[in-house]
């Protein structure tokens, strides 16, 4: 089987051992079947089992293997090794505290996600089967519900880097709009109130890094624009 050598440069940091982070250069033999970056990282782990990273579904659904790949956030399992310039530089998602190597502490990210109440609120009695929507109303949720919370977008956003404790971030705001747009939800006004804040929503300066990196092809900037549009409509 045909093999090729691929050069990697990986961010390493073990707070129990290292005084500060360092970059490790590794060359790796890959077979032609090792197409995705995740395949390569799994092989790297076999070669040096001290490398720590997260992974789970290996098919772009769980969002665990989000990392900074050659300077751009993405999912290792969806990235083709051969599309990457060598040495392939792997770093943890920027802006979040590093637990070890490529693993970051996502507490702030999930705190922001929870702050927008990411669940349907409807005080009507439960129907016998399900709460129905018209196909048109259901279409409103397309491009919103597909988010896998990998955090590629929020950790590519400078506004989130500077104020992760106050700015909801693109992922959280996309999820917020998913419930604002849902005709079955009865708390639209409260949801807009919750976001009408110079930090929570209006830190977004529309630089669209989130759109650039989203591995699912979603558009948080558009969702944020729609939230602002709804706020404006209810105010004027």
């Amino acid at each position, binding site marked *: 089987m045909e093999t090729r050598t691929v050069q990697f440069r990986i961010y390493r940091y073990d707070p129990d051992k290292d005084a500060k982070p360092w970059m490790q250069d590794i060359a790796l033999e890959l077979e032609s079947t090792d197409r995705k970056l995740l395949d390569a990282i799994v092989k790297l782990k076999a070669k040096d089992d001290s490398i720590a990273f997260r992974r789970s579904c290996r098919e772009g659904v769980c969002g665990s293997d989000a990392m900074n790949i050659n300077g751009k956030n993405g999912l290792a399992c969806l990235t083709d090794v051969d599309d990457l310039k060598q040495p392939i530089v792997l770093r943890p998602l920027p802006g979040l505290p590093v637990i070890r190597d490529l693993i970051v502490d996502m507490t702030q990210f999930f705190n922001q996600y929870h702050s927008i109440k990411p669940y349907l609120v409807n005080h009507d009695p439960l129907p016998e089967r399900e709460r129905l929507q018209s196909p048109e109303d259901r279409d409103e949720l397309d491009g919103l519900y597909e988010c896998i919370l990998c955090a590629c977008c929020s950790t590519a956003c*400078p506004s989130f880097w*500077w*104020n992760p404790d106050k700015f909801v971030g693109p992922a959280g705001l996309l999820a917020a709009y998913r419930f604002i747009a849902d005709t079955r939800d009865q708390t639209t006004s409260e949801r807009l*109130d919750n976001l*009408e804040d*110079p*930090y929570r929503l*209006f830190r977004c300066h529309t630089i669209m890094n989130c759109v650039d990196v989203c591995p699912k092809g979603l558009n948080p900037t558009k969702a944020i624009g729609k939230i*602002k549009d709804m706020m*404006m409509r209810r105010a004027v």
Partner: protein
Amino acid sequence: MRTTTGAHYGLRDWIAQRITAVFMAVFTLVVIVALFTGVAESAERWRAFFGFGPMRFLSFLFAMSLCYHAWIGIRDIWMDYIKPVWIRLTLHSLTLLALFGYAGWCIEILWRL
């Protein structure tokens, strides 16, 4: 210490920033078109152009728009990067004072024509 959010403002500034941007773009176009018609050929014509009633009205609005637009933009920079509240408040105040001063100065110059 607990982090607090929920100041319940931001929408008005966001809308104002867009409206002032559009107004300033239109004003700039008006001035560019006027330049092509030769208003800057002599000091007298230039003075007459800015002394013309509607132009005085528009140039006043332009100065106000610029200051409001700049206030929101600069305040955003302080909010993004300056963490200590007292330093941020001081910078906000200095920015506002400077912009008010510049606006008055600008109008004083334009309306003197």
